[in-house]
């Protein structure tokens, strides 16, 4: 039932062809893994007769009804580094630090479905061993049971589309919702077949899902899953719509994977991360945004292994700028849209003289959503950067659950992951509020807003706070939602 394959080179993956029957597509799988997994993977454990809940959901509802016979079980391939060995007689995994540390040497798994075509099913692969993976990836911690060991792996779910009963859009919805169910305990788990049903008002039956999905169906899937999807479309009547991409990157920065549609390709992917450009000192005046500093977005595309970096422009077969609509599955209490933050952020420079913001034409703006508690946690971990009065203010303000953060950095600060100033905006504000802020501060001064009174009495609702020089050149940039890839 268990077979260990030692890998001295990627060619050794061809042993999968002798170990597995053709219904699992071992030749194609070996080729795909050889091209996509780094040489840090030195051992593959084959687990046969694996009951995969996602495949079973499609087996019970589709494959079992067909004239062609399909197996009910899958095969799972587990990836380990060179310190792990397998004792075939005792069915034990050994590593130098002991079994409790096995997770430190584990790189995830790929399920193979017995469907002959598109056999790669539910997979969680560490970005650390994915050749060429993007630098920053949205991940969750996934628990894996194997041979009585409880292993953990950080990654983002992916799978090939089934082709016959699901298409790219189903696979993208499934990936995002499986991430949600692992990352946030308020969301339940949805299986592959659940997703195909959730897309429609009634069960269309048979092969209807494979005839494609409309963007509205994906929106419906996220609604049915209990999220509050926001659907943003690029304005193609303009020669460019930079605000669309700034919002896209803001949501990714906030830790929300995006369902992204590329109309001209008829294709959908999940956007799960990005690569920054190498910072350079351009000394060219002009305000920029975080989107302008992104070199590539990380896609989970059902035609490839996960985390492929897709260049903003000039990529093949597609570029990130081919995305012309996206859906972000938000929690309930985000009422102030990214479009509003995108307009508000540059206007905050009109408070620049009072707060002490850097010159607008030398600033890079980055905005994203987080929770009030995450903000407090971030500040608590870096107490020494903050005047105690500012720290007390951040701890005292009665935020709603979610806030938008706008960070202002000079080019020099951006290069070293620092910011000059930060604004905290109420994510539950309404569109027409002239002062939707909780706080804006630099290293020298802060403006504090009383959200209870500021809309009716401006003078009574705003206070200033003089801050002591804490002896640093900038505050640490708030990067909490994406995991830096540690290439192995």
């Amino acid at each position, binding site marked *: 039932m268990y077979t260990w394959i030692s890998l001295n080179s990627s060619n050794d993956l061809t042993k999968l062809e002798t170990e597995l029957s053709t219904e699992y597509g071992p030749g194609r799988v070996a080729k795909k893994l050889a091209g996509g997994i780094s040489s840090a993977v030195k051992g593959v454990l084959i687990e046969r007769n694996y009951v995969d809940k996602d495949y079973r959901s499609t087996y019970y509802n589709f494959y079992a009804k067909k004239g062609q016979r399909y197996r009910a079980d899958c095969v799972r391939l587990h990836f380990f580094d060179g310190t792990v060995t397998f004792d075939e007689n005792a069915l034990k995994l050994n590593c130098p630090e002991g079994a409790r540390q096995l997770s430190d040497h584990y790189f995830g798994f790929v399920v193979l479905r017995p469907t002959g075509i598109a056999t790669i099913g539910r997979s969680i692969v560490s970005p650390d061993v994915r050749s060429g993976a993007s630098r920053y990836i949205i991940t969750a911690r996934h628990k894996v049971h194997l041979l009585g060991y409880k292993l953990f792996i950080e990654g983002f779910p992916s799978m090939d589309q089934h082709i016959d009963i699901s298409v790219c859009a189903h696979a993208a919805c499934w990936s995002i919702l499986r991430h949600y169910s692992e990352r946030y305990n308020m969301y339940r788990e949805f299986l592959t077949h659940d997703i195909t049903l959730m897309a429609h008002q009634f069960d269309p039956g048979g092969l209807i899902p494979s005839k494609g999905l409309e963007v509205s169906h994906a929106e419906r899937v996220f609604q049915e899953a209990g999220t509050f999807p926001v659907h943003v479309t690029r304005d193609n009547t303009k020669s460019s719509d930079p605000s669309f991409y700034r919002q896209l990157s803001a949501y990714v920065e906030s830790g929300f994977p995006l369902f992204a549609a590329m109309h001209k390709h*008829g294709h959908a992917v999940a956007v799960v991360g990005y690569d920054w450009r190498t910072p350079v000192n351009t000394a060219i005046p002009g305000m920029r945004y975080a989107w302008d500093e992104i070199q590539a977005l990380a896609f989970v595309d059902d035609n490839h292994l996960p985390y492929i970096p897709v260049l903003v422009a000039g990529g093949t077969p597609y570029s990130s700028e081919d995305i012309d609509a996206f859906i972000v599955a938000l929690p309930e209490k985000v009422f102030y849209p990214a479009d509003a933050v995108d307009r508000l952020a540059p206007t905050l420079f009109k408070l620049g003289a009072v707060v002490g913001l850097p010159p607008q034409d030398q600033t890079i703006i980055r905005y994203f959503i987080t929770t009030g508690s995450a903000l407090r946690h971030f500040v608590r971990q870096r107490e020494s950067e903050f005047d105690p009065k500012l720290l007390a203010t951040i701890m005292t303000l009665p935020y709603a659950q979610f806030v938008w953060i706008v960070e202002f950095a000079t080019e020099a600060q951006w290069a070293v992951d620092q910011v000059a100033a930060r604004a905290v905006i109420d994510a539950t504000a309404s569109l027409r509020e002239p002062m939707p802020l909780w706080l804006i501060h630099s290293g020298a001064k802060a403006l504090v807003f009383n959200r209870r009174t500021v809309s009716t009495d401006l003078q009574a609702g705003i206070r200033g706070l003089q801050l002591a020089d804490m002896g640093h050149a900038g505050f640490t940039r708030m990067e909490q939602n994406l995991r830096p890839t540690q290439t192995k």
Partner: protein
Amino acid sequence: MDYEKKEGDVFEAIEGLTPVDPTALADFQRAMNDEVIPEIVKVVQERRMLAAESRHWQLKC
């Protein structure tokens, strides 16, 4: 009533706050009321209309 008032006044719980000269905020306030808020309302409405069109795009690759 007093308790409610105290609960609501976050400024009382923070030390070192000082009043802000309203003229220093006038430019921001004017920009928000005259330009930014109308623009936000307009762009949000436009995005809704664009989304309505893209809902029917077929995805099947």
